[in-house]
């Protein structure tokens, strides 16, 4: 609906040329200053974002380093607990994967081989080499093993049995109140498992084998064969009929009595 008189009346309301120019220039000035304000604001926002991103990155780095350290500490604690249980002290730089230990493990094996023959397992896949504080674990001389109160401990992670085997070599008399060849048991753990150990002595040396959860007296046939083959390979020990599992022919036994 149109009313031409109203249209004509409104047509008379127009900004004149100078007013038009004034308004447009004022608007453009405002536009220009607004853009400046916006660019300053964006610059500030950008700066804040960069600052926050830098802080977050720093936080992430600190967290990662902290996490890594706590893991290392955790591993050490685990080792300490394990060593405390066996009466040993962690040797510095103990993880096998460390360069230092990788280099020394074959040498340790040589030491063990020289004194006791070939020990099972033949290779240390994973695990840690621990020692009593002060022991010259990497000494050229096997005499170090005979030093009083010094103990050599090797821990093997046996994947096939899902267990850990600790072999401890120490001067005789360490377990003198227990008849050697007897299977001894540790206290039951929270998960219901318990450790079992057995030891032999000869010529002033005691060698003890301790499984973290495998019962030596109830070991499966294949494992028992390998285990006693290993014990016999420690050639400084002479088996006799009193030893459990010994059948007089130096052949592996099927099961511990």
């Amino acid at each position: 609906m149109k009313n031409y008189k109203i249209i004509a009346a409104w047509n008379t309301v127009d900004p004149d040329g100078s007013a038009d120019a004034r308004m447009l220039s004022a608007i453009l000035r405002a536009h220009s200053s607004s853009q400046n304000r916006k660019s300053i604001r964006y610059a500030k926002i950008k700066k804040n974002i960069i600052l926050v991103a830098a802080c977050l990155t720093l936080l992430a780095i600190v967290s990662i380093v902290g996490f890594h350290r706590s893991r290392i500490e955790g591993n050490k604690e685990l080792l300490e607990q394990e060593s405390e249980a066996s009466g040993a002290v962690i040797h510095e730089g103990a993880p096998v994967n460390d360069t230092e230990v990788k280099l020394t493990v074959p040498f340790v094996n040589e030491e063990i081989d020289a004194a006791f023959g070939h020990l099972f397992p033949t290779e240390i896949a994973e695990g840690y080499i621990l020692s009593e504080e002060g022991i010259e674990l990497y000494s050229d001389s096997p005499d170090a093993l005979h030093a009083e109160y010094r103990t050599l401990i090797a821990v093997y992670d046996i994947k096939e049995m899902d267990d850990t085997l600790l072999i401890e070599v120490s001067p005789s008399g360490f377990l003198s109140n227990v008849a050697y060849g007897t299977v001894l048991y540790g206290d039951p753990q929270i998960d219901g498992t318990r450790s079992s150990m057995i030891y032999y002595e000869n010529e002033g040396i005691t060698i003890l084998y301790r499984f973290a959860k495998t019962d030596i007296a109830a070991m499966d046939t294949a494992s028992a064969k390998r285990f006693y083959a290993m014990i016999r390979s420690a050639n400084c020990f002479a088996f006799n009929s009193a030893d459990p599992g010994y059948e007089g022919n130096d052949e592996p036994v099927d099961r511990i009595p």
Partner: protein
Amino acid sequence: MTKSLLRTDKEIAELYARHINTVYRVCYAYMRNPSDTEDAVQDTFIRLIDRAPAFESEDHEKAWLIRTASNVCRNVLKHWWRKRVPIEQFYDLSVEEPTPETDVLQAVMQLPDKYKTAVFLYYYEGYTGAEIATILKKPQSTIRNHLHEARMILRERLGDTFDEEL
């Protein structure tokens, strides 16, 4: 159609050229003197620059400007120093000479503020009642009522000279 939120000077100038007459008339309907009208027009366009709204079409752009101009003017008129005297008296006391108005324009300008924008949009811009209701964000019945009241007043003031033509 400019959809970008960041407009160049050229785009602002083009937008201004497209809508200055409409915005000026809406503002004049409220302010009734060129100086205040100019200020209101500038404020309207500056709001557009600051808020940088994205428009779907030129109609959307125009509707936004009409509504903003109307709000700007009402805010100015509501301000405390304006309230110290009645609006009608304020116009009379204005130092500036008002724009010479025809009888019809004078009659329209003397309508209450709430009717003037509706009359301008309906009779001059050709918007329907529904469209005006959308632009001014008021119920359609209110706009219909405003237009009806405005027509009654104009008929009373202009007599036979106020003739509606289809």
